[in-house]
C-alpha cells in the first residue's frame, strides 16, 4: 500500500513512500483509541483514581464502616448504628480530648501565625547571612517530629529537666515546674513544641508571599507618609491575606489531627489531661483493640475540619472575588 505524505513543500509534496508492512494497522487502532478523548482521559486518570481509591477512599469507607460496627481486634463486628458515637460523646475522657483538641489547635495556630509572620517580616529584610538564617530556620520543620519531640521530652523531664535546672540556677524558681506532670502545664508544653515545629512552615510560606508584593506599593505608601505599622496593615496584610489563609487551613488540618507529638511527649497523660482526639482514638482503637469505638472517636474530627476548611475557603474565594 502506498500513500502520499501529507504536507511538505515543493517537489516533496508529490513524493510517494512505501509503508513497510500491513501490521502497521495495529498502531493505527491504538492511535484511534488515543484520539478518543474519553478513552484517553480514562487511561490517564485511572492510575490516580486507583491510588486515591486504594489509599484514601478505601480507608475512609472502612473507617466509616468500623465506626458503625462493634468490631474489636480479631472479631468481625456487627452493625450497631451510631452507638459508638453516642458512647464516645458521653465518655468524659472523650470530652476532655475533644476540648483539648480545640484548645491545642487554636493556640498553636495563633502562635504559629503571629511568630511565623514576625519571622517572615524579619527575614524579608536584607542583612548579612540572610541565606544561612533562612535555611537554619527550617531545621525544626525538617527534623522528624518524633526525634525532636523526644528531645523536648528530655528538656521537660519531670526529674532531670534541663529547663528546670536552668531556671533554678538562675534564681527564677525555687521548686521544679511540673512541665509534664500537670495537665495544664502539659498542654502548654505541647502547644509550645507544636509552635516551635510548625512556625517555620508559616514563616517560609509567608516570606514567599511577601516577596511577591511589589516594593513600589510600599514606596508609594511611604511617600504618602505612612509609618511602618500603617504600611503593614494597609499594604502588606491585604495582599498577604490569601496566602495566610491557605497556610492557616493547612495548619489547622494538621494540628487538629496531630498525633505524634502528644503520643511521644505526654502519651495523653497525666490522667488523660492532654489527650487529643487522635491519641485517644489510637488508645481505644489500637492499644485497647476496640476498633469500632476508636474509629468513631477519630471520625469526630471530620465534620469539625470540614466546617473549618469550608468557612476558610469560602472567605478566601470572597477575597479573590474582591
Amino acid at each position, binding site marked *: 500500500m502506498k500513500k502520499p505524505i501529507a504536507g511538505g513543500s515543493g517537489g516533496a509534496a508529490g513524493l510517494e513512500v512505501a509503508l513497510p508492512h500491513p501490521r502497521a494497522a495495529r498502531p493505527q487502532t491504538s492511535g484511534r483509541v488515543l484520539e478518543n478523548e474519553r478513552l484517553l482521559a480514562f487511561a490517564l486518570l485511572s492510575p490516580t483514581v486507583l491510588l486515591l481509591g486504594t489509599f484514601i477512599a478505601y480507608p475512609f469507607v472502612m473507617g466509616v464502616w468500623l465506626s458503625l460496627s462493634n468490631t474489636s481486634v480479631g472479631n468481625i463486628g456487627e452493625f450497631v448504628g451510631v452507638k459508638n458515637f453516642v458512647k464516645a460523646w458521653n465518655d*468524659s475522657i472523650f470530652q476532655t480530648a475533644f476540648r483539648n483538641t480545640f484548645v491545642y489547635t487554636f493556640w498553636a495556630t495563633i502562635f504559629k501565625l503571629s511568630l511565623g509572620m514576625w519571622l517572615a517580616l524579619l527575614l524579608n529584610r536584607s542583612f548579612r547571612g540572610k541565606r544561612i538564617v533562612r535555611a537554619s530556620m527550617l531545621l525544626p520543620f525538617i527534623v522528624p517530629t518524633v526525634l525532636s519531640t523526644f528531645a523536648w521530652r528530655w528538656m521537660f523531664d519531670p526529674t532531670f529537666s534541663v529547663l528546670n535546672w536552668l531556671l533554678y540556677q538562675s534564681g527564677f524558681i525555687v521548686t521544679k515546674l511540673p512541665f509534664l506532670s500537670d495537665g495544664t502545664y502539659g498542654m502548654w508544653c505541647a502547644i509550645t513544641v507544636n509552635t516551635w515545629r510548625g512556625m517555620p512552615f508559616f514563616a517560609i510560606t509567608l516570606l514567599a508571599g511577601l516577596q511577591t508584593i511589589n516594593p513600589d506599593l510600599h514606596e508609594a505608601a511611604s511617600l504618602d507618609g505612612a509609618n511602618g505599622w500603617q504600611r503593614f496593615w494597609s499594604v502588606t496584610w491585604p495582599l498577604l491575606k490569601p496566602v495566610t489563609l491557605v497556610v492557616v487551613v493547612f495548619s489547622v488540618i494538621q494540628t487538629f489531627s496531630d498525633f505524634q507529638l502528644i503520643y511521644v511527649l505526654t502519651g495523653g497523660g497525666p490522667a488523660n489531661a492532654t489527650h487529643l482526639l487522635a491519641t485517644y482514638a489510637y488508645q481505644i482503637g489500637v492499644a485497647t483493640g476496640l476498633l469500632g469505638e476508636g474509629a468513631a472517636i477519630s471520625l469526630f474530627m471530620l465534620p469539625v475540619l470540614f466546617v473549618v476548611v469550608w468557612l476558610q475557603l469560602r472567605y478566601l474565594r470572597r477575597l479573590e472575588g474582591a
Partner: protein
Amino acid sequence: MDRRGFLKSTGVAGILAAGRAPAFAQGTKLHLLRWNDFIPACDVTLREKLLPEAIKALGAEIQLETINANDLQPRITAAIQSGNGADIIMTLHNWPHLYQSGAVDMTDVAEWQAKDQGGFYQQSEQAVKDGKRFLALPWSISGLLIAYRKSWFAEVGASAPPKTLEEYRELGMKLKKKGHPIGQTLGHTFGDAPAWSYPMLWNFGTAETDKAGKSVLDNKKTVDSVKWMTSFWKDACDEGGFAWDDTNNNRAFLSGEISATLNGASIYIAAKRGQEKIKDDKGEPMVRDIDHFPIPGGPAGSWGYHIPFSHMVMKYSKNQKLAKDFLKWLHAKEQFGRWFEVAEGFSVGSTKHWERSPMWEKLDPAMKLYRTAAQASRMVGYAGPPNAKASEVYSKYIITDMYAKAAQGMKAEDAVKWAAGELQKIYG
C-alpha cells in the same frame, strides 16, 4: 544442646528415626517479638545463645525483635487485623484474653509445662486461660517490691521497713522533708503504674468487681484508698511521677533523687552491675545501701501485683507447629533455666519449681524476697475473672487514673464516681 537433644526435648524424636528434617525445617522462618528487657543481658542471652542453638537444631531461621513494652499492644492489634506479623508475641498481664480470637490454643504445651515444672502460679494461669483453653504459654513473672535506701530510712528513724501503709506515708513525709521523696508513677505506663495502683484497692478491701464480674468499685473502701493515695502523694512523693514511665523511677533512684519506689529488681541489679559508677552520697557503691520490702499492709492486708509474662502464638502464623515446638523447647527447664539465671531474680518462673532454684543461694540477701514474691499476687479484674473486660480496664488506665485524678486535686468521691462509671460501662 544439639539437634538430637532439641528434638528429644520437644517430643519429635521420631523425626530422627525418619532420617530427614521435618517439613518446617526447610528454610522456614519464625519471628519472635518481645519487649526490651529491663535486664539487657537477658535479651543478649536469648539472642546470642539460646536462639542460635534453636536455629541450629530446628534448621529454621528465628528472628528476635525487641520493642518498648508500651508499644506491644498496638503491634498485636495491627498484626491480628492485618493477618501478618510476628509468629510469636510476648504478652504481659492478661492481654491474651483481649486477643483470644487471634491466639492459637496452647493447652497441650501448657499442660506439659505445668506438669514438668510443678504447676503454674495462679496469676500466670489466670493471665492466659479462658476457662478451658490456654491462650498463651506462661513464661515468667516480674516481681515488684519496694526498693529503698537503708541509710536514708535510718536517718528518719526507720531501722526496719514500714509494716503498714500509714507508717509508710509518715515515713515518706519525713523523707520528703529531708529532700529524699518517695518516687512512684501514676502515669500511662505498662508495669509500675498498675502494679502500684491495683494493690491499693485490694489492700483497702475493695476491688474492681465481685466474683461474678460485676463492677463494685463505688464504695467507701475505694474512697478511703483514694484518700490515702492523695495524702501519700502530697506528703511523701515526688509529684513529677504523674508523667513517669517505667524507666523514670529507675533513673531517679539510681541518681539519688528518690529514696524508695515500687519496682522490679532491675534497680538493684543495675546498681550492682554498675557499682563502679553508681555511688551513694558518701561515694560508696549504692548497691550496698539498697534493700527491698513488699507493699505495706492496708486495712485488708498486703497484696501485690506481680506481672505475668507469656508467649502467644498467633493464629495467622503459617508456622504454628514450628512455633509451638520452639516454645516447648524454650520453656523447658534447661533453656528457661539459663535465661532465668541471667535475670538474677528480676524475672521469676511462672511455676513454683523456680523458687527451688540453686540460683537464689548465690544472690545477695537483698534479692531473696523476690524468690517468693509472686505468691502474694492477685490479678487485674479481681475478684471477678481476669477476662477481656479486665484487660480493657487496664488498657484504658482507669484504676491508675482514678488515683491520679484525686492526687491532682479532684475530690476522692468524684474520682471514684468517675472510675466506677467507666467500669460500669465495661463490666456492667
